[in-house]
């Protein structure tokens, strides 16, 4: 049994009436938890906790209605523990009447801490604990190639897929897919689609049926059939959910296609954005074992286990690889659900750790408050003990009070977490998987209740045990023997709060520093004042070089003519955008041997592209339509260094047209005419990548591969780039009203998108750490204030004997600093040791960054001493005469 389950089981043992019935219930729950663990420990644990809460609630509610859970044939044993839930609740609620200040502090402190816990749990449940929206989704696995030790680095080839699909009996269905971008035009409105091409019968892998029409089958996959399935969303949006859509003809890339059916609602493979799915297109590239471009999913059949399927897959792949694929490292078979959420699992784990720390800090804080309150009630408790209340009875009463107050705090936390979840979703990066499932539901509410009860027990345990262990006679006589001990415990608690808050603050400070380091990275080009637009040219209307280049020329002329435009250029790929393309590249006379030739990014540009991006041509010149020397290429510094290390690249010749074992033919060689600075191509954490830039009007004389591809326009503007969004869009539609235009945005937004996740992580942890720190400061204040109020008599006497106000103040501050320095030191030490846990989240920041730790230490100590200053000042204003008179 895992730790949490064991704790919940102990709570059940305590709450349920003793007897065989309760014992059997605990046994049932343990057994069911064990059975469910096969489907995931976390989910089983969540189920167990929710069921345990339901059992407690029903037991309490039945008890209140006078029904027993003991079973009729059992009589209560003499001296058996009796639980009176209604009486306990009544006792607990009395706290609010008798001690509203205390109750309010506890409710607010715990409410804030629980709000963070519940909010993060809601996200964890939505992203990690929900089932896939497919029947028996846990049986779907993803099969990835392993290359250089990295899973999924390089896809699966079609011949490999065919042999796997035919040869592995542990799977009842298998699919392979590849990306596809189409231009769809209906009723004069053009849209760019995100689609995939896929093997027929893919719906069987998900175990779902089409929402309308039928699925793709083998006949649809025949060459020239042009059949597609469309997404549920597209069906609703563009076709008014027409139930007879099957067989309808539409135009994609200006060719007629037939819609055979509609994907079911909630279908989100490969992601939620998929618009259309077509059969894997025929082509010679399908026949090559070396061309790994497919993603493969399979459904494990009901009479096989995932382990058996994995073993069978490994064996077959090893046999195929031995025959055809040298130097392959096999495959990884992983649960599809896990692969979907893997990127955020660590981040949510970090958040969960952070909120647990916040909650523990809050519990330590209210435990200190509760301890002080228990000390104040020592007289009352001693009377109860003296009148015959057993120790257990007093513990139960005090614990019940804590739990009831904590549950009210939990209700506040739950209410606040509605706002918390909304805030979290607003801040979260848009590509957070399954974000639509993040919502507060009954399971979250049960969790909130369980967390609140747990917090109540945690913070109430120490005061309850203390309160019940009173040396009764001395207390009744008015002695103060335990006061000193209690305040020392409170000081320990305050020190622990500071320590934990410092750990959290250190983590936050490292993440913020790392996020700052990321923002400070120079992308290599000028992102300010740049507007970027993505445009798709339908290949059927722009099939020839003249048509494409003519459009480019008219567009660039038109854009340059717009007021406020400095420069404009276009390219098949923009830094940080889509359309990234790579190819192997050969020098003149160099034979092609796979693995020994550098892979270089390829871009095809037109217009004043380098100027529009703020890239100076360092040497040579930009390519042009120079008839003296056709076939020109511009390299960036990284590419020049990679291809011609230590040599001058200008004037040298390169080619990406390769054939195994042969040098490239002379007719495919391009001459390097210019060198530009390197840029980061996908994200700020990338190295400066090697890129070769071809001039579109030049390369289109020889190659036609860029036809139909989307291109990206970049416009350098004076002032706000977005002010040109509308003129540019109007210009595009003016040139061709059927053009799909999407993603008009600033270059800065494109760059910023890649820093959203780190920024999100650091801001969330920062908020939690500030909350923890605030609570800890309040804790320091409270313990010092309590000490001063308890010690008024002593202070009065000392002042009467001639102690100065400064001396008294210094005394309080010295005591506070002992607590604070010890706690903060311990916290920094822990943070220093635990720092490497964060290493994966940090960019160019040491996980043991001394500057950050030093700052945190300083903030914690200064802040705590400021918090202690108020009680210190109050101590020094004690009037000795009055104190002594009151005594």
């Amino acid at each position, binding site marked *: *049994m895992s730790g949490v389950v064991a704790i919940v*089981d102990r709570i059940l043992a305590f709450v349920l009436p003793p007897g*065989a*019935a309760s*014992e*059997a*219930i*605990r*046994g*049932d*729950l*343990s*057994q*069911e938890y*064990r*059975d469910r663990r096969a489907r995931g420990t976390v989910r089983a644990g969540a189920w167990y906790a*929710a*069921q345990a*809460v*339901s*059992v*407690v*609630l*029903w*037991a309490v*509610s*039945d008890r209140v209605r006078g*029904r*027993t*859970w003991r*079973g*009729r044939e059992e009589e209560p044993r003499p001296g058996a523990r009796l639980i009176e839930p209604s009486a306990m609740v009544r006792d607990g609620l009395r706290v609010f009447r008798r001690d509203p200040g205390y109750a309010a502090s506890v409710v607010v402190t715990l409410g804030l801490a629980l709000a963070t816990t519940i909010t993060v749990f809601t996200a964890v449940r939505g992203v990690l604990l929900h089932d896939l929206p497919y029947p028996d989704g846990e049986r779907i696995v993803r099969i990835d190639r392993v290359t250089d030790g990295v899973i999924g680095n390089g896809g699966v080839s079609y011949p490999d897929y065919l042999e796997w699909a035919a040869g592995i009996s542990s799977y009842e269905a298998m699919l392979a897919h590849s990306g596809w971008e189409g231009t769809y035009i209906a009723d004069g409105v053009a849209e760019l689609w995100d689609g995939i091409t896929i093997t027929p019968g893919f719906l069987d892998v998900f175990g779902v049926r089409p929402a309308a029409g039928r699925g793709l089958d083998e006949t649809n996959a025949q060459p020239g059939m042009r059949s597609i399935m469309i997404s549920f969303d597209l069906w609703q949006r563009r076709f008014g959910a027409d139930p007879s859509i099957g067989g309808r003809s539409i135009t994609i890339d200006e060719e007629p296609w037939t819609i055979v059916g509609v994907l079911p609602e909630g279908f989100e493979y490969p992601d939620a954005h998929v618009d259309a799915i077509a059969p894997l297109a025929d082509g010679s590239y399908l026949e090559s074992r070396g061309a790994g471009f497919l993603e493969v999913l399979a459904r494990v059949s009901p009479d096989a286990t995932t382990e058996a399927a994995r073993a069978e897959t490994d064996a077959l792949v090893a046999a195929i690889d031995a025959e055809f694929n040298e130097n392959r490292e096999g495959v990884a078979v992983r649960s599809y659900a896990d692969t979907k959420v893997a990127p955020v699992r660590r981040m949510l784990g970090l958040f969960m750790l952070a909120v647990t720390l916040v909650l523990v800090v809050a519990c330590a804080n209210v435990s200190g408050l509760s301890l002080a309150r228990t000390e104040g009630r020592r007289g009352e408790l001693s009377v109860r003990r003296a009148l015959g209340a057993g120790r257990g009875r007093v513990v139960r009463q005090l614990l019940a009070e804590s739990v009831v107050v904590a549950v009210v705090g939990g209700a506040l936390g739950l209410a606040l977490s509605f706002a918390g979840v909304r805030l979290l979703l607003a801040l979260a990066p848009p590509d957070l998987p399954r974000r639509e499932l993040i919502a507060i539901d009954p399971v979250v509410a049960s969790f909130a209740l369980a967390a609140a009860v747990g917090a109540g027990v945690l913070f109430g345990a120490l005061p309850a045990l203390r309160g019940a262990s009173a040396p009764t006679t001395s207390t009744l006589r008015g002695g103060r023997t335990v006061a000193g001990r209690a305040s020392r415990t409170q000081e320990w608690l305050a020190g622990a709060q500071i320590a934990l808050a410092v750990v959290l603050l250190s983590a936050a400070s490292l993440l913020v520093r790392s996020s700052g380091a990321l923002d400070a990275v120079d992308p290599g080009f000028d992102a300010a004042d740049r507007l970027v637009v993505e445009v798709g040219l339908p290949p059927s209307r722009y099939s020839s070089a003249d048509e494409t280049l003519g459009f480019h020329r008219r567009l660039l002329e038109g854009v340059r003519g717009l007021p406020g435009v400095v420069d404009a250029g276009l390219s098949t790929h923009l830094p940080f955008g889509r359309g990234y393309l790579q190819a192997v590249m050969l020098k003149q006379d160099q034979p092609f041997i796979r693995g020994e030739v550098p892979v270089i990014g390829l871009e095809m540009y037109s217009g004043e592209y380098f100027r529009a991006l703020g890239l100076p041509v360092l040497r040579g010149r930009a390519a042009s339509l120079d008839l003296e020397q056709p076939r020109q290429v511009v390299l960036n510094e990284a590419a020049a260094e990679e291809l011609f290390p230590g040599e001058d690249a200008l004037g040298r010749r390169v080619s990406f047209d390769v054939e195994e074992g042969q040098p490239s033919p002379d007719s495919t060689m391009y001459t390097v005419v210019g060198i530009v600075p390197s840029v980061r191509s996908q994200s700020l954490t990338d190295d400066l990548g090697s890129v070769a830039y071809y001039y579109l009007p030049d390369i289109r004389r020889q190659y036609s591969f860029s036809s139909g591809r989307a291109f990206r326009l970049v416009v350098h503007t004076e002032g706000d780039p977005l002010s040109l969004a509308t003129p540019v869009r109007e210009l595009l539609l003016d040139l061709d009203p059927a053009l799909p235009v999407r993603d008009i945005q600033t270059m800065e937004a494109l760059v910023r998108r890649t820093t959203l996740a780190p920024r999100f992580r650091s801001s969330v942890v920062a908020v939690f750490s500030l909350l923890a720190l605030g609570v800890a400061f309040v804790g320091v204040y409270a313990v010092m204030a309590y000490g001063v109020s308890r010690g008024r008599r002593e202070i009065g006497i000392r002042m009467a004997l001639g102690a100065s106000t400064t001396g008294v103040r210094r005394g309080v501050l010295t005591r506070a600093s002992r607590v604070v320095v010890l706690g903060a030191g311990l916290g920094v030490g822990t943070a220093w040791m635990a720092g490497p846990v964060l290493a994966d989240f940090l960019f160019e920041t040491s996980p043991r960054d001394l500057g950050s730790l030093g700052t945190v230490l300083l903030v914690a100590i200064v802040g705590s001493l400021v918090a202690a200053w108020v009680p210190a000042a109050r101590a020094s204003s004690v009037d000795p005469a009055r104190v002594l008179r009151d005594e």
Partner: protein
Amino acid sequence: MGGRGGIGEFEHLVLLVVLGLGDEAFAPTVAERLKRDANRSVTRGALYSTLNRLESKGLLVWTPEEPGEGRGGHIRRRFGVTEAGVDELRERRATLETLWSDVGARLDGGTS
């Protein structure tokens, strides 16, 4: 219905399931069967409360069994329907059959 304050719809289902399970009527199996056959997902709290209620109405009894594996050494309860419970079910069925015989033809035939 019956002289014991009657039973509700969910209690009725639970009684039927316990009777149907025979020697296999343990709480987790009852929950599983309710989910499978009646499409009712029930929290364990609600289930135990119902089982206790049926027991106190004298319609159910249970006998302790040796704990199996994975139960932390806790006993199992095997539930069984009492004579009174079987009578209650018979009575319910008779009532339902009478009522159904009036409307059944109309529902099946689809005439107005």
